């Protein structure tokens, strides 16, 4: 195997991976054009689901002016923003679901070990630019734009344009880390899909202000499965300008990524293919 080409730490390696990513994204776009109806059905299902959730927010705020100090438009802004890191993560790492559900169990994972690439890259590269993630991003951006406009959030100020994308990126890394950690468990327990599903379900809490939940829940959502950092924390900053817990975002993201990568590396070492 050509080590120089596969070690991303060198400049040559980085360029190689960047070129490959560009190529694989183009392959994905071609797949999208081929299976247009499939994409449309998925997108319609997703848009209707988001619409119903917005309707729920609307109905709730018909009854009360504020919830935990948040107004209707603020909650809509939060709900839309929460879709962005989720969508960005789905756009690039959704093949991890198959590591958790099938690839390790059946031994198909072998295929990724013999490719002249980092196994983790080779795994996630199966689904670069997954279109379902794009639907989430488009709906999320529309909601943030609509609610941000009504709230007079300075969406086009230099500060927002720098901080908001960074927050979305960190949030996506947190989502990817939780997924990677759950997927890595499969190396020991063979199928970790249910665990991953459960962790993913907890992310549903992120669509609403974490202040709605009792203190122990808030603590778990902030420091154990840190989904609070994917939405509530950055949105609180964007709406008020007060950094609050935002200063912890880089630390939490780095911590989550480090834990997930450590689990992946150890799991990879523990991987024994199927017996026969």
């Amino acid at each position, binding site marked *: 195997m050509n080590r120089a080409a596969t070690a991303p730490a060198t400049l040559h390696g980085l360029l190689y991976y960047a070129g490959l990513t560009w190529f694989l994204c183009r392959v994905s776009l071609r797949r999208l054009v081929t299976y247009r*109806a499939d994409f449309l059905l998925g997108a319609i*299902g*997703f848009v209707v689901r988001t619409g119903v959730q917005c*309707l*729920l927010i609307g*109905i*709730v705020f018909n009854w009360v002016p504020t919830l935990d100090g948040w107004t209707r438009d603020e909650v809509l802004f939060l709900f839309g923003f929460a879709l962005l890191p989720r969508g960005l993560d789905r756009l690039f790492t959704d093949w991890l679901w198959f590591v958790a559900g099938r690839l390790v169990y059946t031994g198909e994972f072998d295929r990724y070990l013999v490719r002249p690439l980092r196994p983790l890259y080779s795994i996630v590269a199966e689904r670069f630019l997954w279109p379902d993630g794009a639907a989430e991003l488009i709906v999320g951006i529309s909601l943030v734009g609509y609610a941000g406009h009504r709230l007079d959030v300075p969406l086009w100020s230099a500060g927002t344009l720098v901080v908001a994308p960074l927050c979305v990126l960190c949030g996506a890394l947190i989502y990817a880390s939780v997924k990677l950690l759950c997927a890595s468990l499969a190396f020991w327990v063979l199928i970790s899909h249910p665990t991953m599903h459960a962790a993913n379900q907890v992310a549903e809490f992120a669509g609403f202000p974490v202040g709605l939940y009792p203190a122990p829940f808030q603590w778990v959502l902030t420091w154990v499965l840190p989904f609070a950092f994917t939405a509530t924390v950055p949105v609180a900053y964007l709406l008020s300008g007060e950094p609050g817990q935002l200063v912890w975002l880089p630390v939490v993201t780095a911590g989550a990524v480090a834990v997930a990568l450590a689990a992946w590396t150890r799991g990879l070492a523990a991987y024994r293919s199927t017996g026969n």
Partner: protein
Amino acid sequence: MAGSVVRYLAFVGVGFQSVLRYRASFFVSVATTATTTAVVVFLWRAVYQHPSHPAPGGFTLPTITTYLLVAQLLIRLHDNRVDSEFANDIMTGNIAVALARPARYPLMRFCLAVPVIVADLLLVALPVLALFAWLFPLRWPGAADLALFAVAAACSVVLAFAVNLITGMHAIVTTNTWGVTLLKTTVVGLFSGGLVPTDAMPAPLAHAAALLPFRSMIDTPVRLFLGRYDTTADALRLLAHQALWTAGTVLLCALLWRRLVVRIGVLRG
């Protein structure tokens, strides 16, 4: 007749064995059900605890908690995955083997699902109910309301099965299964009262919900559980309304199946 009952009981046995094989999944199911329930419960509890005391739909804090909890548990029992399993049978071509068996396919699917539903009730719904009963004060029904609820809940399971099977039939025509399933889950969730109790819905939405069968899946059983009806005749009317929708949907399911089964093409064969 007796022979055919025995034949279908065999499928119930197979379904039961699959339940035993995947015991661990029920623990995870408890966690996911508790999580989805908690999101809705905390959201609505925040509304009812608001200082302005809006009390939408005339619920109190314990009754709204009970409503949403029982609604989410029913949704769990209705989620029998028959839509995705049916769609999978079509896509893989396994349907050919199933059709060759001397049993009606929809009935066979129902028999396979029954043990899963019973296991979901005992191993998922009851533990989650116990968890929330420990966390929050709930409103418990009397013996009569509990009996009415049991009948309505059983009926709703049949209705949900028919709705799921109809959803699964789209796989004969298209290949994207999760998009359509997501659409169904969303529409049913909204109009059944699972997300917003029908009494707290804005008028246009409540009117739409009244015209659709989905209300019988969640709102009717939960309403009986909470005793939210005026007279016994009222309660019986609710049950009759639900039975009518169930019979109609099952009939529609059977008709669609007869029309579509001839269109199934296995690997272009």
